[in-house]
């Protein structure tokens, strides 16, 4: 608290409200910087220090421009941030235009005296990769010696979520275009001239195959979107026994044309866990689908459970292992990317979202997914969930 402007503390001597406000600012999760009438920093709270990596005490007396330079030194050079006030734009006909923030600030909080808005996004790489939204407000309070307050909110999480959504949409569009190309293309080809009966049947079969693929792809994208939308909501949890969930999920699973049943290696005692039964069952089904699909009727499919303790947390991991074609290191690195498929020839009905869904479901339960595989050696995927000890 030694960086708090003396005026904040002494305006009304003995008034405990001011020391409370100072205390509140010091625990506020938003970075707060106070700039005095001479344009120099008079105050910076603890959150600002944490987020920016700059020591509050070193900033007292620093000009706002110098503060920006210090932030830039920790910033991502590929994402330059401009002056706090958005610069005027000159239109081709020479007229000046105001800029407008895409997400407009509330008019009640006038940012600049001339009414223009004032805020920008900052990307830092040190002390950690963060996205901060900086907004400035005028403080019309001559007694305090402060004229401008800069707020730095950490929007890293929201930024990442937006980026994921954007990527998903771009990839989804591409994924839908591919089967559509086939459907429209084959239909047009059939119409453009006479074909013999066998060719026609063949083309119609292909058309239907891609129509089904498109339907499945859309279902999976909706699943993924629904799951990602739940990130900000709470997950309704029920008390369940993970072993029983696994056994049930396997019992309700069938892979067309493959009579193999999974072999279990589960503890005899119940494994208590608070989770979403439907999501966990879906998770197991996705893992089983991959195991069957990539082992082509050969080898065992094993469903097992392990327990470890790491850094004081107890983890339970349920896994599905197959003895199928396995994956290269390159495949493994990309396996969890939405729409990534091991078999790109298009003959496989899967649309590449199985492992993305598994990862989402694990994340929603505060868990993680582990994959180990070797080319021609099979694959093991483990979902680790934290359990109360």
């Amino acid at each position, binding site marked *: 608290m030694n960086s708090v402007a003396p005026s904040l503390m002494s305006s009304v001597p003995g008034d405990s409200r001011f020391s409370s406000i100072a205390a509140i600012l010091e625990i506020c999760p938003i970075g707060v910087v106070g700039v005095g009438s001479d344009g120099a920093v008079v105050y910076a709270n603890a959150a600002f220090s944490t987020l920016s990596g700059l020591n509050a005490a070193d900033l007292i007396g620093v000009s706002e421009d110098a503060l920006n330079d210090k932030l830039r030194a920790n910033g991502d050079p590929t994402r330059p941030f401009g002056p706090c006030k958005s610069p005027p734009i000159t239109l081709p006909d020479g007229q000046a235009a105001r800029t407008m923030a895409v997400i407009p600030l509330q008019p009640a909080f006038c940012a600049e005296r001339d009414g223009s808005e004032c805020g920008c996004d900052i990307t830092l790489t040190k002390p950690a990769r963060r996205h901060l939204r900086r907004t400035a407000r005028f403080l019309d309070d001559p007694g305090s010696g402060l004229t401008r307050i800069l707020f730095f909110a950490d929007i890293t999480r929201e930024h990442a979520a937006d980026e994921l959504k954007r990527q998903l949409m771009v990839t989804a569009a591409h994924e839908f275009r*591919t089967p559509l*190309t086939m*459907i429209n293309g084959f239909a*047009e080809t059939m119409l453009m001239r006479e074909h013999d009966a066998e060719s026609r049947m063949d083309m119609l079969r292909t058309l239907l195959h*891609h129509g089904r693929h498109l339907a499945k792809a859309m279902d999976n994208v909706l699943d993924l979107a629904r799951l990602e939308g739940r990130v900000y909501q709470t997950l309704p949890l029920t008390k369940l026994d993970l072993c029983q969930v696994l056994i049930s999920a396997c019992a309700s699973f069938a892979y067309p044309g493959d009579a193999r049943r999974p072999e279990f290696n589960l503890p005899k005692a119940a494994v208590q866990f608070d989770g979403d039964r439907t999501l966990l069952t879906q998770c197991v089904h996705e893992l089983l689908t991959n195991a069957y699909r990539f082992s082509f009727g050969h080898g065992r499919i094993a469903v097992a459970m392990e327990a470890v303790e790491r850094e004081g947390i107890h983890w339970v991991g349920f896994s599905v292992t197959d003895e199928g074609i396995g994956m290269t290191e390159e495949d493994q690195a990309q396996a969890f990317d939405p729409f990534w498929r091991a078999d790109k020839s298009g003959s496989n009905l899967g649309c590449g979202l199985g492992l993305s869904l598994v990862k989402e479901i694990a994340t929603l339960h505060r868990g993680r997914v582990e994959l180990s595989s070797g080319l021609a050696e099979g694959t093991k995927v483990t979902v680790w969930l934290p359990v109360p000890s």
Partner: protein
Amino acid sequence: MFDEMKEKLLIVDDQGALRKMLRIALGYGKYQMFEAQEGTSALRLAREKRPDVIVLDVMMPGELDGFQVCETIKNDPDLKHIFVVLLTALGSDADRKEGERVKADYYMVKPFSPLNLIEVIETRQQRASVTGTGKA
């Protein structure tokens, strides 16, 4: 028409189903057809067979994508006369500009109409510009 008199057409796409569709759509007897699944073999076939037309998918796994194959062909004095049609699901301005940069003769966004593709190939209609790129 004997094979030797026909023009040569090379289809390059990693997806078997799309190659099949193109094979059927373009296989009305006018062209001698060759196929490749990825960039390196596409270039090899281009040098061996000297096709008149190449239909080239942009997104392919492996060392070379469609843009790189097109660029290599257009920078090779022996091959640059080949009419190259780029097929892609990517239709953004940046992608079209890249198509222009690698000097593709035509840039077609999926889903595309096979009839349109036939017309483009038959007439050697040129369009790789950002503004006027063909779209089915």
